[in-house]
């Protein structure tokens, strides 16, 4: 029984991590059909902001939950205005430009922060379940992931901004004809996606050490989760993160952590072969 609880928490934790690292990418892809390959570096930037803020005496939770999203959101705004907005509608070109951005940011990180790993200590202790220990931070992450998904759903479904965003994503020309400024909608969406990435990066910073090349560890998983999920932001992310998170965690328990990662990747290839436009392309059509 205790073991079952621990395994459940582990699986939920692994799903939560996938949800967090892919939510920013999913918002940008789902709304704008833009793949931001610099996403991993946005996460890393969020982590660095949190660490630097914490080192300079600010409260850790303030750094993670407020400072990192704001800074990375602003950075996303700058990137959108300078690079991405010239490339809308040209999927491959956006991918290439953002890949360039990712390389440039990696290079910049190693020039600024040096080629060393930095980190912050895990702020929450462990919880005892029978004979086992679970990390309190795991539970915090699970809660955070659930909250992020809930907030995205509420914003999209229940606010005027969400209505505008959904309209602009379904029929940009029609939305423009109604007098909406599409350019501003896109700019805000990109900044929001970037802010989410910053939040996720900061939340994950206590778990893993942070180096200039850390983004590369995230990008593939985030990319796979979002593409396999399909066009619907919330449903797609949750379903595919749930699937891949469970598969990789089960295989990690049975074999090794490398076995888990390889199982995740193989599952993604098989899934895309069966559902060429992602899970929500096949099921849950029209969900948010």
């Amino acid at each position, binding site marked *: 029984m205790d073991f079952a609880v621990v395994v459940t928490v582990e699986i939920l934790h692994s799903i939560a991590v996938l949800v967090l690292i892919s939510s920013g990418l999913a918002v940008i892809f789902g709304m704008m059909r833009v793949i931001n390959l610099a996403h991993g570096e946005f996460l890393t930037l969020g982590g660095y902001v949190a660490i630097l803020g914490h080192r300079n005496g600010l409260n850790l939770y303030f750094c993670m939950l407020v400072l990192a999203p704001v800074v990375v959101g602003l950075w996303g705004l700058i990137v959108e205005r300078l690079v991405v907005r010239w490339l809308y509608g040209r999927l491959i070109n956006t*991918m290439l430009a953002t*890949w*360039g951005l990712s390389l*440039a940011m990696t*290079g910049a990180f190693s020039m600024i922060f040096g080629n060393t790993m930095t980190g912050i200590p895990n702020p929450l202790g462990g919880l005892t379940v029978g004979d086992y220990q679970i990390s309190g931070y795991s539970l915090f992450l699970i809660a955070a992931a659930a909250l992020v998904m809930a907030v995205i759903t509420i914003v999209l479904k229940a606010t005027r901004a969400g209505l505008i965003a959904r309209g602009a994503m379904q029929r940009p020309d029609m939305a423009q004809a109604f007098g909406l400024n599409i350019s501003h909608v896109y700019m805000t969406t990109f900044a929001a996606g970037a802010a989410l990435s910053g939040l996720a990066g900061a939340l994950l910073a206590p778990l893993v050490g942070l180096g200039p090349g850390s983004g590369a560890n995230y990008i593939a998983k985030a990319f796979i989760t979002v593409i396999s999920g399909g066009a619907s932001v919330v449903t797609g992310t949750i379903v595919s993160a749930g699937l891949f998170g469970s598969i990789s965690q089960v295989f990690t328990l049975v074999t090794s952590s490398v076995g888990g*990662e390889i199982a995740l990747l193989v599952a993604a290839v098989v899934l895309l072969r069966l559902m060429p436009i992602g899970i929500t392309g096949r099921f849950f059509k029209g969900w948010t």
Partner: protein
Amino acid sequence: MNSRVLVTEAGQVVAGTVACALVLPFIVDVHTATLLTVYAMLALSLGFIWGFGGILCFGQAAFYGLGAYTYALAAINFDGAWVAFGLAILVPAAFAGLLGALMFYGRLSDVYLAVVTLVVTLILFKFFNSTAGPSYRIGEARLGGFNGIPGFPTLTVPGSPDTYIYGAGLFYFAIALLALVYLGLRLTLLSPFGRIVVSLRENEERTELLGYDVRFYKSAAFAVSGGIAGLAGCLFANWAEIVTPGLFSLGQSAEIIIWVIVGGLGTLIGPMIGAALLGYLKFALGHQSVVDNSFIMGVLLIVVVLFLQEGLVPTVTRFAKAGLRRSSSKKSRRQSRRKRIVSDVR
């Protein structure tokens, strides 16, 4: 295609190759020149499938690494490095053909294709990275995990198994192979097969409605590209005398794409020039540490995507042609336009 075109083509290629072979070792040393040739071969493989077939493969490094690993493993296990040489082309080609069939018969395209190729590269990277234990062996060869496989026999002169091909010899061998592959691709593009591949890029639906099985042609073109990348990997293995999982890394995949797009998409010469130039730039930047290497590469990629969408070679050619046209008479203008149409078709 008539035989005169063919002879002129071949003449140009031979002249270009000889010029490169003579000049390059004076600009950089032979060792670096060989590596640049390998890069050019690798860029050529992606330049073909992406620039002519319209298929963007994000995991060209998979075939490159596979070629290198196949060579190393086969060279240890079999007598005679030339068997390994052949396998290093065939195995990646077969792998690419199978992977291509898996994707194209499943009607994957665009981003989805990019994801699958990227993921396959990652799987290979993770797998070879985790094979450190002594239980991971193929025949006599231990896979060696992140340390890679060192100390396999390199290519020898046929008929004299003790004379190794290295240094300048390897450079001339590599550049000759590059010229052969380039010429082979030019001829392929003139052939019915090549024309169908180009028509896939132009309009896949129409090609299919004309009665061609696009899935088959895409897979076949993918196999050709994979085989060339494998050859590049084999040459790399001979140059470095060690193969490591780094060959499969994301960074390696990224670099190939940058070479091709900077050099020029839709040409064969562009990717090679892009690879040589950027490879040299990387080499030159490697000697100082003020500015990070990947920073430069990243900024370069952004600038090219934003401002120089066609890449170096097509842009330069267009400006050169425009300059020529302006200075010539009306009659020759008409001629040059006709020539341009012909060259576009080619």
